[in-house]
């Protein structure tokens, strides 16, 4: 085995194959192929792959619209390279659901296979993919390709989709789909004058109507709105969030309660979890999130992305906290004029009220075991993906790009109903990602159990659930050599 484990990716120079990869980034690849080429950027000389036909394969997330957009848009890439570089590409696609994609990718990459040349990864997996050297570090490639040197909309984008380990300058991914949580509302119900009057009569406050109204709204105020529209007798409920045990669902929806009120989930620098995750703020946050179940349909404790879409599109809920990425599925043809998308409310009261929601979205990552030809195509693909026209086309088809030029276009907000909310949430400080640690999956699995145990009522004390999760995660991080402090004695009895 010739791999080392420097997170900085220094190992790239220890492997003959990797040396080739480095070259594949740009002109040196051409030299390796014994093709005279001055610069592919200017396209003056023939492309080293000119006249060839290359088979490429992309692994993406099953049933995830932005992933399938990558698939659906690939014929455009075929045209692009055919015209520009004179080679042909045949794409094959493999998919796996969110919860299984990493499994699919990891089991393939661990065999050093180039079964999947380009992978759409979830942001938190970057560490787990980068650490064993499965994916290509992109710093050199970005340095050599101008079209990859984009001005990203905010540092959040860079932190979430590109960097590992946190705080370094090592880039492993490029944003494929940006994603934040947004609040989807039934505009037709909200803007009914009768409802506004009834609401004002009952709560002595105005029913928020516009995007700007919601910008300043707090959870406490929104609770009234949810309560107002919560009519179980008519089979309509106030809102929907995600509480599901599957993958990261409940985690992503609980974190906003924690982050916004100053809670933390770990100390990224020391990898200390115990004492940080199991804090009073976080316990309070759990209680708050659970209390929201009363405005949600029965069965909401099992809601994930798909279930939310089902209840929202079937008109069972007035509002829905949902990823901006599935906007297209949330707003069906018949609902087209009945839905508005706003920023999710702030937590806390008065001047302290803040909103820090969870980041979603996925980066592109490139298989480090690609041979030269595939690597070349992968890099051409990235260059093409970030062409302004491609990015705009992506947005028009329902995707969420992350680059400043596109997001600051005057017409960006009007491309899709959720764009304004998405852009708002992408502003610095309003959304953040969590652990990119290689032990991500393991820590997540423990935490999902603990959180759902409390949400479903199996564990009655939120602190007990938090302590259990914190102790387990602490042990995982100690075992992995990241954390230095062993779980305390309190952990011996910690259980669900």
């Amino acid at each position, binding site marked *: 085995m010739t*791999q080392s484990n420097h997170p900085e990716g220094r190992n790239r120079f220890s492997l003959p194959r990797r040396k080739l990869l480095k070259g594949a980034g740009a002109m040196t690849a051409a030299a390796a192929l014994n093709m005279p080429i001055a610069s592919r950027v200017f396209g003056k000389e023939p492309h080293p792959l000119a006249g060839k036909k290359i088979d490429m394969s992309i692994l993406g997330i099953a049933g995830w619209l932005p992933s399938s957009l990558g698939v659906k848009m690939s014929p455009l890439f075929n045209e692009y390279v055919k015209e520009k570089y004179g080679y042909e590409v045949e794409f094959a696609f493999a998919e796996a659901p969110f919860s299984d994609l990493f499994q699919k990718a990891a089991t393939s990459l661990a065999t050093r296979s180039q079964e999947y040349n380009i992978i759409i990864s979830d942001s938190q997996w970057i560490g787990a993919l980068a650490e064993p050297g499965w994916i290509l570090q992109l710093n050199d490639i970005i340095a050599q390709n101008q079209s990859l040197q984009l001005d990203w909309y905010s540092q959040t984008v860079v932190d979430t989709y590109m960097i590992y380990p946190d705080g370094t300058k090592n880039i492993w991914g490029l944003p494929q789909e940006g994603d934040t949580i947004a609040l989807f509302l039934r505009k037709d119900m909200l803007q009914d004058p009768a409802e506004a009057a009834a609401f004002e009569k009952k709560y002595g406050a105005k029913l928020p109507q516009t995007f700007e109204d919601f910008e300043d709204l707090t959870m406490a105020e929104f609770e009234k709105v949810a309560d107002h529209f919560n009519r179980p007798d008519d089979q309509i409920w106030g809102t929907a969030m995600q509480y599901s045990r599957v993958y990261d669902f409940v985690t992503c929806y609980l974190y906003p309660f924690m982050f916004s009120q100053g809670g933390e989930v770990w100390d990224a620098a020391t990898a200390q979890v115990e004492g940080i995750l199991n804090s009073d703020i976080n316990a309070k946050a759990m209680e708050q999130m659970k209390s929201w179940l009363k405005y949600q*349909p029965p069965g909401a404790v099992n809601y994930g992305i798909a279930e939310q879409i089902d209840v929202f599109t079937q008109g069972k809920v007035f509002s829905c906290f949902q990823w901006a990425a599935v906007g297209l599925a949330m707003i069906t043809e018949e609902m087209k004029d009945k839905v508005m998308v706003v920023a999710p409310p702030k937590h806390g009261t008065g001047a302290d009220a803040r909103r820090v929601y969870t980041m979603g979205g996925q980066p592109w990552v490139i298989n480090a075991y690609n041979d030269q030809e595939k690597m070349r195509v992968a890099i051409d693909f990235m260059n093409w993906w970030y062409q302004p026209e491609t990015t705009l086309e992506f947005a028009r088809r329902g995707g969420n790009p992350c680059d400043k030029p596109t997001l600051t276009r005057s017409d960006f907000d009007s491309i899709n109903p959720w764009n304004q909310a998405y852009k708002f949430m992408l502003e610095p400080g309003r959304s953040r990602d969590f652990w990119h640690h290689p032990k991500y*999956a393991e820590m997540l699995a423990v935490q999902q159990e603990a959180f759902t145990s409390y949400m479903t009522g199996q564990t009655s004390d939120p602190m007990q659930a938090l302590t259990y999760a914190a102790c387990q995660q602490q042990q995982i991080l100690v075992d992995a050599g990241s954390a230095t402090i062993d779980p305390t004695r309190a952990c011996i009895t910690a259980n669900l």
Partner: protein
Amino acid sequence: MAAVSQSGGSKVASPRKSLFDDRRILVLFLLAPVLCFFIVFNTIPTLWLLGLSFHNFSLTSGMPPEFIGFRNFVQIFYNKNNIWADLSRTFIFVGSAVSIQTALGILLGFLFWGSKNMPGRRIALTMLFTPMVLTPVATGTFWRFIYDPTFGVLNAILRGLGADHPIDFLGDPTFAYWAVVAVDCWMWTPFMTLMTLAALGSVPKAELEAAEVDRLPWWQRVRLVIWHHGKFIIMLGVLLRTIDSFKTLDLIIPMTKGGPGQQTRLVAVELNKQAFESFNMGFSSAYAVLLLLISIAMTSVFIYVLNLRRRKDSAAGGET
């Protein structure tokens, strides 16, 4: 018996001498394929598993396996996760599911046995057997839909019967576990019915007729005639169901993923999580080795019971 056929084999002066006239070569020829399969796909992986169980090896760390002795095993019982809870949940699952399936399956088997002239019996039986050939991946997903409090047909029926509040079968800790047991029973009761029918089919008609002539009461008939002949097959059905329900996984993943909390976290679910969500290959191997030992112990008991019956039988009946 073996001696007879052996002498038979050597007595014959076969005109076409073949390699296989040598008994050892013949035995080898017959066993070679199964042994090859066994060694490549069973022995090697099992040894691999055993070896890994003494190593710290995570697929995602990029580190080569590191020998750590029994630490994985120690971790299983100490603080890493709660194996006792998982095991007891699993045993309750196996116990309740298998006994319900056996009881119901035998009952249905007897009922169908007595309905040889029923119109459309073959179709009715085919319909009854259908649940066990459904793809579990889809079955779990669809049952989640059937159980759904908002859209599900089961709650619609309950509503029709006058229930005020829908029941969240898979989200409510009081119901989730038994909701999963119910689906397992739905899927596998037909299997026990099938085994019962096969067992009843093996009862000699003459003995049944004799029992009828003797006017034996029905329980005597069951005990003396039917159970005597059929118990081997029924026990075998129970054995197979026990082994299989001990490793129930593919129904649970789409339905609850081990939730709510850890309510339906059976050992196979936990193992799947450790192996293919966390990629703790060393730890999961140790876990798997433990499960294998438990399974072997359970199966040995069953086989012992089965063989006991056979031995008694051959002792009583003698060889022909």
